């Protein structure tokens, strides 16, 4: 075989790597006895998936979110983000992966109260390498996408719960992450606001965004295309 043969050979195009992939990943906390917050688990989330992880309090949902969000490391197994192994990655590398690949939506919104909605959204562009000249336009576009163009210069404290969560979603998607990780996104919202946020998730999913929503609410979970149940640290796909 020559170099020319290699060049002529058809490119081997396999299935694309999953955006998120757990390979026997487990998280154990030291103690007497040790706490198995997450038993060895396998999970693959492909590009464009809308996956929900549902489970009661204390089932290991937060542990799973921390691992998937690169805020914590598995004590065994491997976690690949966009095909990149992360179990041995250093703090700097993990921060860069978070900045470029993951958008977070929190139950308590976690918007900065003294900053305007626009400034809150701009925060996510600071660390993800968005060119300075594009930041404002991208943030305004993200706010437009979540229907908050009329609230750009408001501080979060004067917004309704639903609007705050929409602002948080705009912040999560402004840097065009590979996946949106939402932790109980409707936990602090009334039913109307919850519905509007879930509608927004549907829209984002329809636009090609990969979503992973962690919730204890079966109704929220039911909106997802794929569902995974977590109980006592064990993950199980719901058919």
């Amino acid at each position, binding site marked *: 075989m020559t170099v020319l043969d290699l060049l002529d050979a058809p490119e081997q195009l396999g299935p694309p790597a999953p955006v998120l992939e757990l390979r026997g990943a487990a998280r154990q906390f030291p103690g007497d006895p040790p706490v198995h917050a997450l038993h060895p688990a396998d999970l693959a989330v492909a590009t464009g998936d809308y996956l929900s992880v549902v489970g009661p309090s204390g089932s290991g949902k*937060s542990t799973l979110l*921390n691992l998937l*969000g690169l*805020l*914590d490391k598995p004590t065994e197994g491997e976690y690949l983000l966009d095909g990149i192994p992360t179990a041995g990655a250093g*703090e*700097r590398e993990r*921060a*860069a992966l*978070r*900045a*470029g690949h993951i958008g*977070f939506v*929190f*139950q*308590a919104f*976690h918007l*900065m109260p*003294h*900053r305007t909605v626009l*400034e809150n959204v701009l*925060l*996510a562009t*600071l*660390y*993800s390498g968005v060119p*300075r000249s594009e930041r404002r336009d991208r943030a305004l576009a993200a706010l437009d996408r979540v229907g908050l163009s009329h609230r750009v210069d408001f501080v979060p404290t004067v917004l309704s719960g639903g609007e705050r969560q929409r602002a948080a979603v705009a*912040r999560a998607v402004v840097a065009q992450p590979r996946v949106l990780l939402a932790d109980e996104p409707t*936990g602090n919202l009334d039913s109307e606001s919850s519905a509007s946020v879930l509608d927004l998730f549907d829209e984002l999913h329809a636009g090609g965004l990969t979503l992973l929503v962690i919730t204890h609410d079966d109704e929220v979970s039911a909106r997802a295309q794929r569902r995974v149940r977590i109980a006592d640290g064990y993950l199980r796909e719901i058919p």
Partner: protein
Amino acid sequence: MTGVVGAIVEAWGELRIHKLRVLLALIGVACAVTAITGVTALVSMLNQSFKEQTERQSGRVVTLNVNAWSMGENATPPTGWDAEFDRVLERYDITYASRNEWTQAVVRYPDGTRATQVQAVDADLGTINRIVPVQGRWFTDADEEAMAPTLVVNEAFLEAQGLSDLSSHPTVQLGDRAPVTAAVVGVLHDDWVDAEPVAYVLYDQFHRWIGPDGSGMQSGGSGPVVPNPMMPPQVPSMYLWVPTEQSTDLGDQIKRDMQAVAPGWEVDVQDNNYNTGGLDRATKWVGIGVGAFALLLGGLGLVNIALVTVRYRIREIGIRRSFGATSGRVFFGVMLESVVATVVAGLVGVVLAVAIIKNVPVERMFGSGIQDMPPFPVSAALVGMAAAVAVGALAGLIPAIVAVRVKVIDAIRY
């Protein structure tokens, strides 16, 4: 580079949010920088004021004072004294020098004539002794060539002439046997209360028009000089402003030169180079001490405020970390906030110091005006700024370490 600019912009944005914190930080650090810069400037003004007051008494540093005394009863004044004076100036390249001859001349006042003290000097004495007339002007080189003598008098002289100012361009009659008319061009402050009238006249004009006996006979161009038995023969003393480092050597050489033309006379040269560095050093250290304590207090306040603020901002730091801020960036950001605050405070402090220094009531503070105002101490301002930045960095260090130790998971937990 972009990262650094971004971090500074971010730090500035953060400071805008915490206006109260910035204000508190500003006050302490700005006061410290104002103290360092302002005290340094005031000390240099104080020193300049002392220096100028001393120089008004004994001339600029270093002024050589050349005097000669007759060694015998019948010694006649050396004829080559004035010519040697000119040669000395040329030989040693001395720019500012003046002769000073104390004598008397008859002056006509509204209430009659009487002998008045006259000092025959050169125009350079104005520069050497920092003479600032209260009215009119001091002598210029043009006065040397004038066709009539000009006078600068003290206030007592002007008052004795029945005048209060020079608006009438007054003239006075000098000399008894052949008086000359002299124009008064300037008035000096009296040296003390109830001072006697004194008139200054240019040395060359004095000898051309009035004569060493103060008679004014020279102006008439006839009649012999009548020696005054009450006035012993004398030669004018000489003031020579010379570079400090050469003053000792020049003093020796000039003494030899002048001695050579004055046989029978004892020539003596003295300088006014007294060491006054003690006051300078003491005031400088007081200034630095005040500034250092003010900085310490400002810095401690800043640490306190920064620590409290960081504790309030733990969630925000967690959010930033979750969106990809590295611990280094968080550390740098928190520290930079402190540094940016102190830089702003430092600038405010320097501006404040400039405002204070420019508005110092010099006359009231130092007792007399300052002729050569010392330049604003840029080095002190830079030292103040550098100290402010250092305090900002140190004050930012502890909160920055606290910020880096924030556990993201704990910070964003509801």
